[in-house]
């Protein structure tokens, strides 16, 4: 608490009576313990995934299970990568996630810039249109896109899936970048305009570099959303060679019994590491982005 707080005696933490100090510290301890218990409950499933991935084949099906793996081994990771198509599936997931992120940003950035900075007839209804598309459930797009993709021979292609994702995530990306531009001062662009620099050069040389933080935040969301997506990938990817990791995990689970669950969870762990790393690095952008997005 700051020294110049006008009403220090009204803050319960600053209460001087012994009884209140006791109540306050009891309250803090309870708060801490509850949050600790909730956090442990949140982490147990993730721990169980990693623990299973480190168990040798003969201990995976053990019941009751060992809470701590008795003989931890990395063999499930090596065996899975050695025998399965996991390498291909990881490769597909990386290509599709990076491709979707770049494609969506390239389309969303100019759109968000124009909607935030330019005054032109139709700007407002167009912005509402982008917002409205956010409300559409993914399912309604499944049959339409499938019908279209059959015609365009985009079923079972990475490009098709990237275009589907770009369509579905565009509204969200425009919205996030739009709010970024509304908070970004316009001085530099105006100065350049006074200096007679053409609009396209302003966009490429000034706006693009300034938009980097906004692009980073939006890109992080797009990457994680795409990496984790299941429904579109399940519908549009039908050949084993095209699967993403989510579809691959699901198919592997359907084809194998409990004994190979150490490999299943080894690959689950491996597929979770990239999103956790991205989240660890960009957690503030992530949380602020979600909170800000929903409260707009």
């Amino acid at each position, binding site marked *: 608490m700051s020294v110049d707080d006008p009403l220090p005696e*009204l*803050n319960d933490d600053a209460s001087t009576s012994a009884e209140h100090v006791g109540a306050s510290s009891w309250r*803090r301890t309870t*708060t*801490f313990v509850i*949050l600790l218990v*909730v*956090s442990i409950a*949140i982490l147990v*499933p*993730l721990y*169980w995934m990693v623990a299973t991935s480190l168990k040798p084949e003969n201990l*995976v099906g053990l*019941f*009751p299970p060992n*809470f701590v793996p008795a003989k931890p081994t990395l063999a499930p990771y090596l065996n899975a990568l050695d025998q399965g198509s996991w390498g291909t599936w990881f490769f597909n997931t990386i290509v599709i996630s990076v491709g979707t992120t770049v494609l969506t940003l*390239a*389309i969303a950035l*100019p*759109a968000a810039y*124009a909607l935030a900075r330019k005054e*032109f*007839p*139709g*700007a407002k*209804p167009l912005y509402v249109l982008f917002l409205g598309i956010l*409300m559409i*459930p993914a*399912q*309604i797009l499944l*049959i*339409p*896109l499938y*019908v279209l993709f059959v*015609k365009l021979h985009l079923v079972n292609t990475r490009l098709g899936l990237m*275009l*589907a994702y*770009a*369509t579905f995530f*565009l509204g969200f990306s425009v919205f996030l970048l739009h709010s970024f531009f509304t908070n970004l001062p316009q001085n530099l662009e105006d100065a350049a305009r006074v200096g007679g620099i053409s609009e396209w050069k302003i966009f490429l040389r000034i706006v693009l570099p300034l938009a980097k933080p906004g692009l980073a935040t939006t890109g992080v969301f797009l990457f994680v959303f795409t*990496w*984790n997506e*299941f429904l579109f990938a399940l519908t549009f990817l039908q050949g084993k060679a095209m699967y993403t990791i*989510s579809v691959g*995990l*699901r198919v592997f689970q359907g084809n194998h019994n409990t004994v190979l*669950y150490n490999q*299943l*969870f080894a690959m*689950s762990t491996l597929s*979770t590491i990239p*999103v*956790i790393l991205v989240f660890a690095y960009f957690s503030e952008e*992530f*949380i602020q982005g*979600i*909170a*800000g997005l*929903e*409260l707009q």
Partner: protein
Amino acid sequence: MSVTDFGRKWFSRDSTDGTLNWSPYLYLLPALVLYVVFLVYPMIETFILSFQHVRRLGGAHTWVGLQNYATVLNDPLFWKSAGDTLIFGIGMVLIPLVLGLGCALLVNTGIEYSGLFRLVLFLPVVIPVVVAGMTFGWLLGTHGLVNGILVSTGLVSKPMRFLNSSTLALPSVMLMAVWKRTGYYMVILLAGLQAIPDDVYEAAMIMGKTRWQMFRRITLPLLKPAIIVTLIIGIVDSVKAFAQVYVMTEGGPSHSSEVLSTYFYKIAFNYFQFGKGAAYGFILFALALALSMIVIRLSGGTEI
């Protein structure tokens, strides 16, 4: 806004020098092309498809009027799925909302490590849904940790078949949904809590209000917009929730955990009834839209 209004605004109104400046539309062109090709056009096609009967895509079709819609609405499994979605939705919205609010209030006290707690609670949001579903399926399976604890402590004599039970399958999926969503709601509500100015509470303290009174009279009313937002997201999400259910139970055993979106998927992509599926899709869309409208209306119309 009507289509003609839109057209007039877009095309007729001129900029100051009397000519329409086209450059802003060029920035929007890629986005609009993407939407027209991959959203508007296919949705019109599907709307037409919902009045047709097709054997296979691109093959012969017959016009059947509203029959596809009637088939969906007369399908007892559709209503069974709708009921399950309602139960699932209530569980998946209200439980994480209450837990998320509780966690947000606790984290907002600024306790030691509150930043770390916030990160841990939010972590499930970024975990791939397939991974989360499989992990919960494994935790609750007959060889799983939960049954291990139940049997070891003697609470049950033999492992419970959570996911193969017609009564426990849906609650099992809900457990995972609650795990995955609580942190999401917490983050939104925490932002709402942090937007409430401190002096409101200081004034209430001067007036001798208790903590519970302050929560009821200040925190809850001021959090109302954030709570409504989480409700709307939750309702839309529960109508479209697919992967959680599909990965853990595939809607089974024998449709006991079937929700609207898993049944939709089966009709369209397992039974290949595209006409019925198209009608189903629009019914889902209308439902999500109507439910959101009702929440907005009930809340007295917010700025959303």
